[in-house]
Each structure stands twice: as C-alpha cells, then as structure tokens.
C-alpha cells in the first residue's frame, strides 16, 4: 500500500499544486465548463423549461446518489439500487390499482407509497445483514438483489408495462412548488436531513469512522454492525423513493427499464461529488453536485444530437477521470 502511494506522490510532485486544486474544485469547475458550453452551443439552454426538465430528471439520480454516498463512506458499495427502484416502482401501481386502492383512494395512495418503501427498506436490511453479520463483500452481497430484484418486479407484473392515471400519486413526479418540481425540493430536504445526520449525530460520525478504519471503530466499541446495516437500509429506502418518483413522472411502471443502470449513475455522481471509494468521506451536497454534472452531460449530448451509445462512452470516461483525479486524495 505505502509503496504504491509513494509512487503516486512522486509522479505528482511536479503538478501537485495544480492537481490539488483540481481535486478539491474539480466538480465545480466541470459544472462551470458544462454550463458555459451549453450557453454557447445548445439552443434554448437558458430557459425555464430546460431548468425544469433537468431538475425533475436530476432529483432521482441525486436521491439515490446520496444513499450511495453514505454506503461508500463506510467503504461499501450498493449495486442493487436500480433493481430496488424497479421493485418499488412495480409495487406502487399494483397497490393503488387494486380493489382496495380503488375503494379507499386515500388509504390506497398511502399504502402505495408506504409499502414499496417498506419493501425497499427490507432489501436494504437484507444487504446490510449479509455484509455486517456474514461479512460478505458488499459487491457480492448487493449483487443478489442486483440480479434478482428486477426479476421479482417483472414476475410481479408479468413483465407488463403498467400504465395508470392517478393525479395524486403522480404529484410525486409532476407536482410543483414555487414553479419548480416537487421532487427537486424533496431531494433538497433529504440532503439537508442527511447532512445533519452525517455532521451532527453519532450515527453519522460512526459512518465516517467505519470508512476511515473499520477495525479501529470496532475496537473503540462502536456499533459497527448496526451502523452498516442502517446505511444500507437508508440507501434502500432512498432507492425505493427514487423508483416511485420515476413511475410518477411517467404515469407508467416498466420494471425492465425503471432504474436501469442507476447504480452506475449513482456511483459516478457520488465519486464525482467527492466520495472516496475507500470510505471515510460523505459529501452529501457533493453527491447532488455530481448528479447535476452527470445529468447535464447527458442533456448536453442529447440536446446536441449525439447518440446514446456515444453518451455511454462519455460516461465511462467521466467515471474513470473522476476516480483517477481522486486517487491521491486519501492522505
């Protein structure tokens, strides 16, 4: 470990100042560059409509990315977020379109939000138990739901696209407060709450302690297992919420596509926002910054008529660049 790090440091001596600057402000710089590029080249960029579309899209990435940031802060990773989105998204229409949901619309909506979120928490609990109690590596433990979660959603819906018309449920994805999308405000509220959790509660301090040095945290008598399980449960419930929002935006639930590749977006957003894959840092607002960058890159490519396939390659380059720039961050 130490030999590797000295190598990296020696390699970076020349442009250390530049590198340091880039590392601490890279995300903001990238955002400025993208926005300037769009103002110059993308038609109709500076319009309320553009802002609205981007906020409503970015909110789901940001919500999942915040959960992912907490997981990554403990040195873990959660590949199951996209599958949990699909599962929660498939459950909601099943519930409010059921006989019970039709008979008692209000209760139906409450159940259609609460039960999928409960299922999402359960998925997180499952991940957390495997990781904390059975000491399974996070990549592998979350692989189980990554593989089967979407399958369960498809079995539940027979693979059908569920379309519906339910204005009160759709408020999650199409509602407006002060002219801006409801889910944008929701993401902001979650960010403030999580920021408070990370900086002001013992639970939050333990998240960082586990990522910094799990063994030390354990020897210090910290509730390592409980904190780890809690982190995966939070990530699970946030993924479930994002799944509900996507379904609400579309007024349709497609288990095959809801949250597809979201794990990549979320990891990329967390890393671009400054999370270290080794753990120990939980930049909640960084995750939002990262999500905004990922979304704007997607939007920029799309608005300028570049194909989806090339956008995939661009995303790959962003992830690699972000991780590479951060490599030397860990002192």
């Amino acid at each position, binding site marked *: 470990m130490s*030999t590797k790090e000295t190598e990296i440091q020696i390699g970076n001596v020349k442009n250390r100042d530049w590198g340091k600057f880039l590392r601490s402000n890279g995300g903001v710089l990238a955002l400025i560059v993208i926005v300037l590029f769009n103002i110059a080249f993308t038609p109709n960029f500076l319009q309320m409509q553009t802002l609205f579309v981007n906020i409503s899209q970015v909110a789901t990435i940001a919500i999942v990315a915040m959960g992912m940031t907490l997981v990554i802060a403990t040195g873990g990773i959660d590949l199951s977020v996209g599958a949990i989105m699909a599962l929660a998204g498939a459950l909601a229409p099943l519930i409010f379109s059921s006989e019970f949901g039709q008979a008692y619309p209000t209760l139906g909506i409450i159940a259609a939000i609460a039960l999928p979120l409960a299922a999402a928490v359960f998925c997180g609990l499952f991940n957390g138990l495997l990781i904390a109690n*059975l000491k399974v590596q996070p990549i592998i*433990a979350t692989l189980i739901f990554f593989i089967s979660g979407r399958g369960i959603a498809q079995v539940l819906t027979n693979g059908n696209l569920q379309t519906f018309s339910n204005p009160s449920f759709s408020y999650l994805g199409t509602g407006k407060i002060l002219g801006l999308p409801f889910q944008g405000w929701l993401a902001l509220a979650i960010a403030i709450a999580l920021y408070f959790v990370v900086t002001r509660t013992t639970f939050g301090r333990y998240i960082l302690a586990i990522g910094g040095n799990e063994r030390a945290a354990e020897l210090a008598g910290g509730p390592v297992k409980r904190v780890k399980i809690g982190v995966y449960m939070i990530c699970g419930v946030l993924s479930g919420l994002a799944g509900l929002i996507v379904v609400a935006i579309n007024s349709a639930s497609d288990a095959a596509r809801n949250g597809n590749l979201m794990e990549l977006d979320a990891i990329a957003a967390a890393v671009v926002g400054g999370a270290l*894959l080794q753990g120990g840092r939980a930049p909640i607002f960084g995750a939002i910054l990262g999500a905004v960058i990922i979304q704007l890159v997607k939007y920029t490519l799309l608005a300028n008529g570049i194909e989806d*396939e*090339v956008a995939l*390659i661009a995303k790959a380059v962003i*992830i*690699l660049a972000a991780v590479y720039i951060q*490599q030397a961050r860990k002192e």
Partner: protein
Amino acid sequence: MLDTNAFDLRKYISRNPQSFAVWIALALLILFGLIRYENFGGAYNITSFLNYNSMFIIISVGMCFVIMTGGIDLSVGSVAAFTSVVAAYLSPYGIEVALPGAVLAGVCFGAINAFSVVILRIPPFIATLATMLGAKGGALVISGAQTISVDWGSNFTKMGMEKALNILPWSIVVVGFVVIVLWVVLEKTTLGRTVLAIGGGEDASVLMGLKVNRATAFVYLLSGGCAGLAGVILASGFGAGQPLEGIGWELSAIASVVVGGTLLTGGFGSVTATVVGALLLGLVFNILNFENGKGTISFSAYWQMVIRGGFLFAVILFQAKVNAGRSVGKTQS
C-alpha cells in the same frame, strides 16, 4: 518452494468442502435429469447445452484468474458483445482470421483494464465498470445498433454449429483446449503462482520481488481475450454479431467462480472447480427448461433472474458458513 506451494494447494482443495459439494451437486443433477427426462441425455440436448455453455465456461475461467488476484472484471459481457460484432465483420475471411481478430479485440479491452488498474491504480471494480460502458457503447457504434449477419459462405459458422470428428461441438473443443492450457498456467508456472500470491497479499508479493504488475496486467488481458473468444462463439453459434447480448454475463461468470469455491478475496482458486461451477449453473437452467416443457411448473423467463439470485444467495450463505468454520479451526490449531 513453488512445488510445496502447489502441493499445499491441492491438499487445500481436497480439504475444501465446497469443491466436493459442487462435484456432487453436478453429478446428482445429471443423474436426476437422466432419470426424469428421456431427451436429457440425447445428442441434441448435450450438444446445444455444451455449445451454449462453452461461452460461460470460458468467461468464467478468465474471471476466475482476475478474482484470484483479488480483482474483478465487470466488462466481460459487453466485451463479448463487441467482439461478436468484430467476428461477424471478419467472418468472410474465415474462422482463421475472425477468431484471432476478435480475441485480439477482446485483449485490447483487457489492455485498457490493465492500464487503468496497474498504471492508474483505479480500483478494478470501477475501471472495468467504465470499460463495460465503453465496450457496450462501442459495440452499438460499430454495429449501428443492428445485429450483424455473418458470412454463411465461409467456414466461420463451423465453430458454433458443427462438431469435431462428429463427436463434440468445435466450440467446446476450443474452449476445453484453452481451459487445459490455463490450468497448466495456474498450477505449473511462476506466473500462475504469482497470480495466487497477489490475491493472498499484494504488498507481501511486491516485497518478495514477484512481478506483481506483470501478473495483474496478465489476468485482465486474459479475461479480455476469453471474452473475445466467447464473442466468436456467440457470433458463430447464432449466425450474427450481437451488440445487445452479454448483459448480465459478468454476473453469471462471477456466480460460476463463487460456486466453484474460489474466494472472492483472492489468493485461492481453481480452474476445474470454476468450470464445474459454470456447468452446474447452466444445468440448473437446462433442467428448469425441461421441467417447463413437462408442464409441471411454468416459469416465465423473468423467474430465471430470481432463481439465479437465489442460487447466488445460497452459495454465499454456504461460503460464509464454511469460512466461519475455517477461521474457528484456525484459532484452535
């Protein structure tokens, strides 16, 4: 010193209950299939089973090498899709050009992974994730998001559709040959021992003067090449380069490796057990298909993923238990 290592390893395998469990499970499943379904042992089922699973065997073995170093390669599925398109484009020149060409394309992606992991020091998980996206995008770009039909006039489709000496499909013969070579590499060469040593402890391996970087680069190149070979079999067996295939293959490969008893932390692993793991997973689905055909159950295609996940869960539980028992034994001795 190397010899004693090899000896210890074999003893280790014989002590590893999971290797036994996998062999026994495979034998029992085959027996079950033979008794329950009349066409199970028929030439058609065996040929199509081996043809289809030869792709998974080869990427699983490549993955096994990567995992033994403590790394992971998530790009194999996309790389196989990419190389299947390359193979389809090269098919008019015959298999003797298309095969090396596609494998080389796979090795190129492996080189990108190796560069990211060894030179840039990016964690394998992220590096290969990026390659997965890049290869997927690349496959769609070079194919125009269409399946690319192969040249049926050349000998290209022989690989996936005909049998060597009328006994075994060419695909499994080629894969079998590669697997044997890789088994020798792992068990009998310094390179193979270094791969295991890295997984056992990278820093210690560096301090021992082992060529760690070279061996790490090798496993990613190898995994890329194996994915390339799987791409050739894919294009040859289905008569088309398929840019949209390969989704979830990395998971099947990881599952095969884990089922085979290779530790995900690296440092221990077996080529043969991985092959058996891949066969076992393939067989589970083969039997489910037969069961569907009999009408006793009717599983939609969606169940496949659920069952695959459940299977992985069972194996993880088993491994966790075995490992727990092992560490208890360690503290006692």
